[in-house]
């Protein structure tokens, strides 16, 4: 599983979950924004190819930048205000999946 070290990054969720760019394997990416520097370590999200799930309409023209991250070789995607929705789709869920160290020792169980 890809991972990047966590520091104080500002993440702009120029998101696309079901952006149907399967051909380019860009489905589901979120992008880091370090202010002026947008080298953008991509965060690959789950493959939401399930057709039963809702799609958000999104025009490809919203795509500002895409390409290949030189560090990881992964495709990345950068967009701006590309989160579009219908009037009723007001609630967004976002989940940050981090990685912690679980320690089970004589004092009990904890994650750090």
């Amino acid at each position: 599983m890809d991972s990047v070290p966590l520091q104080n990054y500002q993440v702009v969720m120029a998101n696309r979950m079901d952006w149907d760019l399967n051909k380019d394997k860009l489905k589901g990416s979120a992008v880091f924004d370090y202010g002026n520097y947008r080298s953008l370590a991509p965060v690959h999200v789950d493959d939401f190819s399930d057709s039963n799930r809702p799609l958000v309409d999104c025009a490809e023209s919203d795509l500002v930048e895409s390409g290949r991250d030189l560090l990881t070789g992964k495709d990345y995607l950068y967009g701006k205000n590309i989160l579009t929705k219908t009037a009723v789709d007001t609630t967004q869920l976002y989940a940050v999946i981090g990685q912690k160290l679980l320690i089970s020792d004589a004092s009990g169980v904890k994650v750090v």
Partner: protein
Amino acid sequence: MDMVENKEPNLLKPNFDYSYKKELVSQYKYLQLQPQAGSSSPTLNLNSTTQTVFNIPSDVWNLADSYISGTMTFALLANNSACAFVHKPPVANMYLRNRSGTNIVNLTNFSKYWICTARACQPAQDFLAAGPINQVSETAAQALAGNPCMFNNPADALDSQVFAAQTASQGRITQAGAGSGALVSQRSYVSPQQILQSEEGKALTVAFKLDLGRIPHTVFSVNRDLYSTEILDLVVEFEPGTSMGFNVPTAGIATLNAASALVTAPTLANYNLFLSVQQNPTIREKIISKCLAEGGLKLLVPYPTVYTQNIGASTSGQIQIRVNSAYGQRLLRIILRNLYPPIRLLSVATSTTSPVA
């Protein structure tokens, strides 16, 4: 004398072969645990969440192989049928904590997280092959929330008679969305098979089974044995009753129209945690020894932090997250998703109790 492995050719069937083996084969047994209050029938609240706590004993257990189950019965108004959402576990929040209050898993917005991350459907043949307990078709009482029936919409070539034939008399999977042009587009959001409906005038009993191993990106889904020297608390907060189901009057049964919120909280019964406990003494000893040794047992685990955010009525928006080490040592992924919009067939009042509620 040291144990020596038998080198002779093995002519016995495995069932009768009691010779010494080097392999460490896991042997699990379920330990049935009731919630802390000592009752397997806790009272659910109608308009607020209900907290239940399981004490996980100090033992060698595998969370990914464990599950929570129970049955919920939905009361109904006169001349109504009761409906339940069966596409998600009826759980609002879920935590795994040690006794000093440190969260090992902190899953707020659990049902929403489930909707967005867990596998939402399965092919019909897989569903049918899973056995009666998984089939809504058997009886409504056996319908499993969280492991729902995921047939295709009849409009997508699966004959609607399949539903009728499979769902007996006690409950049925609603057909809303099929046969009406205005509703066809709803399928992308709330498939009709995600709602289970009783016959008119009959209460609806739905079984739910929450396989902890199916909760993505958590300690729960890490399929290996763990040992704890202290008792852990598994906190399960049920959703408000009004978020689990609703009533539909006779006139609206066919289309789920004119739905109304529940006025009586669902009742919960047979509510237990089945904890998968390792029985193989060799494995138990190794894991316990590892935990008690200097440094203990260390394991990198995924740790999700879940938020929901309402971005209002505008048609575009931008969410910014400041990612720091509070989320973990490393970042595995970010999931961002719009939730299911309300079922537009339902009345406005009940729309707030739609699957996203």
